[in-house]
């Protein structure tokens, strides 16, 4: 029951149908505490997933200046991969991964046509052919065995994460010096391509993954599912891990430095490609985790990712595409607004959520001097 209601509220479902149906007779009276508590819980759960997406978008934009529209595709790929693994099927994602690797390798070869050294060549073979090949082998061997849910989740993240690397190599590395606008246009292209590939590899059927854990706990009058606890836990863990990465490691600091001063970073020897690869790999990993988390609470189609990604984008914009904490808090806000608007005005849910962006943009454009790198 709870999970059905939750599903009805989550991203791509017809907004709040079940929920408003269930509570319709009470709507005219007043928003009683129980409904409010339920909506808040639901908003926070979805908001936590949007927070992960928003953080990935901020990370990518600040380091690479790419407004990464296809972040939601990583989510959809992750959720669909997990759902297929649930059915003890070999997910088509691994063929996609190998194809990406081969294309990236061919591009590397083209780049090496004027001569190269053995190390560069072997690294390219290892990264673009051996790595996806190994993941293909592991998945093909393990998937039919019917793995425990944590293993399936980890395997999903393992399959999706290297895609970030290949997407960077294929689409963005050749454009490293392009303007923000060109990078944005490339993002639209990558989004359409990834969505189309999703249709080819996963089909038009929607899938829902099994929850990572089935238990439900009753806290006061609220029913809290183990799945939503997983979502909170994973979101907090990723935020803490990102914090430690950026504050404590030299590579993390190099990424921050690139975001602060691109030329300065080059002058100390930080390669643009290194930061690009790192940022995209992290973003893909975060996307995969988001997919694993959201897959069991809503039915995911090949094109669901876009809408989920856009909600993370709203949060990232509120954070000025630069602030991690504001983005995370804004994402929870987006989740809450979405949840309450699906109760009060379900048909306008998306309009209200995306409408949030307008006052923020007006405020940002009034309060900040316009600065564009070009």
């Amino acid at each position: 029951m709870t999970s059905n209601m939750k599903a009805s509220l989550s991203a791509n479902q017809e907004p709040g149908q079940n929920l408003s149906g269930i509570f319709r007779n009470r709507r005219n009276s007043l928003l009683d505490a129980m409904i409010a508590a339920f909506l808040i819980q639901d908003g926070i759960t979805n908001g936590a997933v949007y927070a992960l997406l928003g953080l990935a978008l901020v990370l990518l934009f600040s380091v690479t200046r790419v407004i990464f529209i296809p972040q939601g595709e990583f989510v959809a790929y992750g959720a669909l991969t997990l759902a297929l693994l649930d059915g003890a099927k070999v997910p088509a994602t691994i063929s996609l991964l190998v194809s990406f690797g081969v294309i990236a390798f061919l591009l590397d070869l083209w780049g090496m046509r004027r001569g190269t050294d053995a190390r560069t060549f072997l690294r390219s073979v290892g990264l673009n052919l051996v790595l996806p090949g190994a993941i293909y082998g592991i998945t093909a061997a393990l998937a039919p065995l019917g793995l425990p849910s944590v293993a399936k989740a980890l395997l999903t993240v393992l399959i999706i994460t290297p895609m970030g690397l290949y997407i960077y190599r294929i689409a963005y590395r050749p454009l490293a010096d392009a303007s923000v606008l060109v990078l944005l246009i490339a993002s639209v292209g990558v989004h359409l391509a990834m969505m189309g590939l999703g249709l080819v590899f996963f089909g038009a059927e929607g899938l829902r993954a099994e929850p990572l854990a089935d238990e439900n706990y009753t806290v006061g009058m609220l029913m809290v599912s183990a799945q939503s606890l997983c979502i909170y836990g994973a979101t907090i863990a990723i935020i803490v891990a990102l914090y430690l990465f950026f504050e404590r490691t030299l590579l993390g600091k190099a990424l921050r430095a690139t975001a602060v001063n691109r030329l300065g970073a080059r002058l100390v020897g930080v390669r643009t490609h290194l930061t690009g690869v790192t940022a995209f790999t992290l973003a893909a990993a975060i996307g995969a985790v988001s997919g694993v988390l959201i897959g069991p609470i809503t039915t995911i189609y090949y094109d669901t990712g876009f809408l989920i990604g856009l909600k993370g984008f709203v949060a990232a914009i509120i954070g000025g595409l630069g602030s991690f904490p504001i983005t995370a808090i804004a994402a929870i806000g987006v989740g809450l607004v979405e949840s309450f608007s699906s109760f009060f005005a379900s048909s306008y849910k998306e309009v209200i959520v995306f409408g949030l962006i307008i006052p923020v943009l007006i405020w940002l454009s009034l309060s900040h001097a316009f600065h564009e790198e070009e």
Partner: protein
Amino acid sequence: MRETVSPNLLELSNIHVSYGRAEVLHGISLAMKPGSIVTVIGANGAGKSTLLNAVMGIVPSKGTILYDGAPVPRSVEGRVAAGLCLVPEKRELFATMSVEDNIELGGFLRSATERAETRADVYSRFPRLAERRKQLAGTLSGGERQMLALARALMSRPRLLLLDEPSLGLAPKIVVDILNIVAELRKTGVSILLVEQNARAALEIADEGYLVELGDVKLSGPASELAVDPALMESYLGAHG
């Protein structure tokens, strides 16, 4: 028998740089010996900064750049790894990061052990920065920022330091401090290619000097001779020099 290595650490021949269709350097040649300070002086817009940027690989150039007798690596990062390091005119610090992080990042391409060694040396050279470790780089004064830029550069353990107008915008007393530090650095074996508008101060600490005008070398020779050159004196050192 080993072949004798070229005695020059850096050898530029016939360097051309264009921005779009406008050529700003018209075939500059320059050589510097290991352990020396060479200064490039000239008016605003003469192409001095462009020359340093070309040596660092930030702007593409035509001509040959030999470093340690071999063609210099192609990428900026490769050049940093090989021991070249540019302190640009605008410093290009990481303003929203701490002094400590800025310094640490200077050693990005060096091992943790090397970083630890150099860090100790850098902090003893710049005690002011050691006091302000936790402060954000953007909140430092102009002189401190220049020190931080130098400190960050030293963390990469350079063999050839390219300094672009290190005295720009600083109070006269701080200019003296900074140039003293530059002269000190040479004693550690670092070679320095120094671009300065403050010609008198630069010639005082340099071994060799090049006068660049409108993208060409107009005059070159030992710094002590340039410092008393009548033509140079008139236009760059002030008539009373």
